């Protein structure tokens, strides 16, 4: 029985396809990740790093999906949490000499505190203004990172951050990919649980009709604040994975361009699905790497691809694929 029903003391019969099917899909997704990582481990360092990047950006995009897709809060400042976590962990390592197990939580705490401060301001506004205020606040952090050279290294950023040692050093590309895959899987499962919990249902209700949720007795402001903090936490995890992948963090990790890119990943994949954000991130990162290896004008090509998505798959890649799959099954069913 669904735990929500147990909590309300009801004995509601549910359709057979729901929970069991979801669990199977979840296990299939985990098995898929393991297979991809296993296959990638046998390849050269470039594909391994590419897949590592895909997983990191997928985690980042899924964290934004909690806000955009599930809560209906369009943010253009999400890179702030990604960058702040990376900068804070890097500073703890370089300036204070803290080990990974201390630096990483401090970085995550910094991302969550930043989200708290941002959202105490931004949540006073409506949707369009939320986007503008998060953009402005993230730009403030970016300008601090560029101008406070003594602390942040300015445009040069902070470099020389060693990868964590977990049993053994994660220096090799393949071993770091395994680490990122583990972090990604745990984080993705946590987000999956969140969006299917009563809290997640309330977020979806707020996205659909916030005044109605207030009339149902939900203090929507608190729900939105908690969603923002959770999104910042997972964005911070992605930021730290990115930090230890490159051993470097610079102002580009706080830039509005990164916020726009991750928003595109969510919209290309399908907002409000988590899995769609993963697809969006994979398409974006792989295309970016492939296109940029052929031309310096890769941003132009990426823009054109996004226009095509907007024209032919406006709801995102995942609904587009589902529709094609349904049509294919119908045509096969019709022929037999």
């Amino acid at each position, binding site marked *: 029985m669904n735990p929500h029903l147990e909590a309300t003391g009801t004995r509601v019969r549910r359709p057979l396809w729901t929970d069991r099917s979801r669990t199977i899909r979840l296990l299939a997704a985990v098995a898929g990740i393991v297979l991809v990582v296993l296959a990638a481990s046998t390849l050269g360092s470039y594909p391994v790093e590419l897949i590592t990047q895909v997983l990191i950006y997928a985690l980042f995009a899924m964290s934004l999906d909690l806000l955009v897709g599930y809560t209906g809060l369009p943010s253009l400042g999400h890179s702030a949490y990604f960058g702040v976590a990376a900068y804070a962990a890097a500073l703890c390592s370089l300036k204070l000499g803290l080990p990974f197990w201390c630096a990483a939580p401090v970085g995550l705490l910094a991302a969550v505190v930043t989200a708290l401060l941002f959202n105490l301001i931004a949540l006073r506004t409506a949707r369009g203004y939320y986007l503008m205020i998060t953009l402005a606040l993230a730009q403030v952090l970016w300008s601090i990172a560029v101008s406070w050279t003594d602390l942040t290294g300015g445009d040069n950023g902070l470099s020389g951050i060693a990868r964590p040692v977990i049993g053994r050093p994660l220096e090799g590309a393949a071993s770091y990919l395994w680490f990122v895959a583990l972090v990604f899987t745990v984080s993705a499962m946590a987000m999956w649980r969140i969006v299917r919990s009563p809290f997640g*249902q*309330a977020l*979806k*209700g707020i996205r659909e009709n916030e*005044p109605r*949720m207030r009339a149902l*007795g939900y203090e929507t402001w608190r729900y939105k604040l908690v969603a923002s903090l959770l999104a910042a936490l997972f964005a911070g995890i992605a930021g730290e994975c990115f930090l230890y992948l490159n051993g470097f963090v610079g102002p580009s990790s706080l830039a509005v361009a990164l916020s726009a890119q991750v928003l595109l990943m969510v919209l290309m994949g399908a907002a409000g699905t988590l899995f769609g954000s993963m697809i969006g991130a994979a398409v974006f990162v792989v295309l970016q790497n492939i296109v940029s290896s052929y031309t310096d004008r890769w941003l132009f090509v990426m823009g054109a691809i996004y226009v095509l998505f907007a024209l032919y798959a406006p709801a995102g890649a995942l609904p587009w694929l589902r529709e094609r799959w349904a049509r294919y099954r119908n045509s096969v069913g019709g022929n037999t």
Partner: protein
Amino acid sequence: MTKSASRASEDIVGNDPAIGALPVALKVSGLHTYYGDSHVLHGVDLDLPRRSIGCVVGRNGVGKTTLVRSILGLSPPAQGQVHIGAEDVSRWPAHRLARCAVALVPQGRRIFPSLTVLEHLQIGARTGERGVDGLAAAPWTIDRALEIFPRLQERLGHRAATLSGGERQMLAVARALVANPRLLIMDEPTEGLSPAIVDQLRELLLRLRSEGVSILLVEQNLAFVLALADRVHIMDKGRIVHACSAVQLGESPEMTRRYLGV
């Protein structure tokens, strides 16, 4: 629930059998509400005794929905008071009011299109868990609501966007029921419903009244109002211009023609 919210919800529930002798469940006095520069409600006064069904009727655009929104704190009034029992709730936010057992079935159903039927009921039930004390009848669980609306049981895993108009109305009513309201406010509940579902709704409202729920109906379906209401408030140009019993309204074709255009 806060102490004052708890007191407000307790005040709505009474055991007195005679409606006329009951204290008020809802009292609206001198309510003025604006949308920007537009003055919509001009000093509305309205009483709803406990365990009764009160109806607000009037033509389109006279301010009925604004009155409901102002009572619930969704469009806060500029002047005037709203009392639930003995508690002045005029400045309460909507979520706090909902937690003291006041539920709304909004006009046009206002369901969440991408949520399933079950998710709607769970969202409604979560706030209702706090409000079940003090009612004589069994509390409204999701199970009990589904017994009333078996059609929803069949559609439990479906998204609300795929429901018909009648099913959406059933869902909106069921969502309000599982919140275990003591005061139920319904805005145009029969709009677009088939006669069979309207009959079912009428039976349900009579049953709720007998279980101790006070009901405020905003409605244009005069036959429905006359069959249900203990007291009818006629609204025109942002004011309550006349209040009488349903029998008196039914016997006055001049009144219905003048204010309701029927």
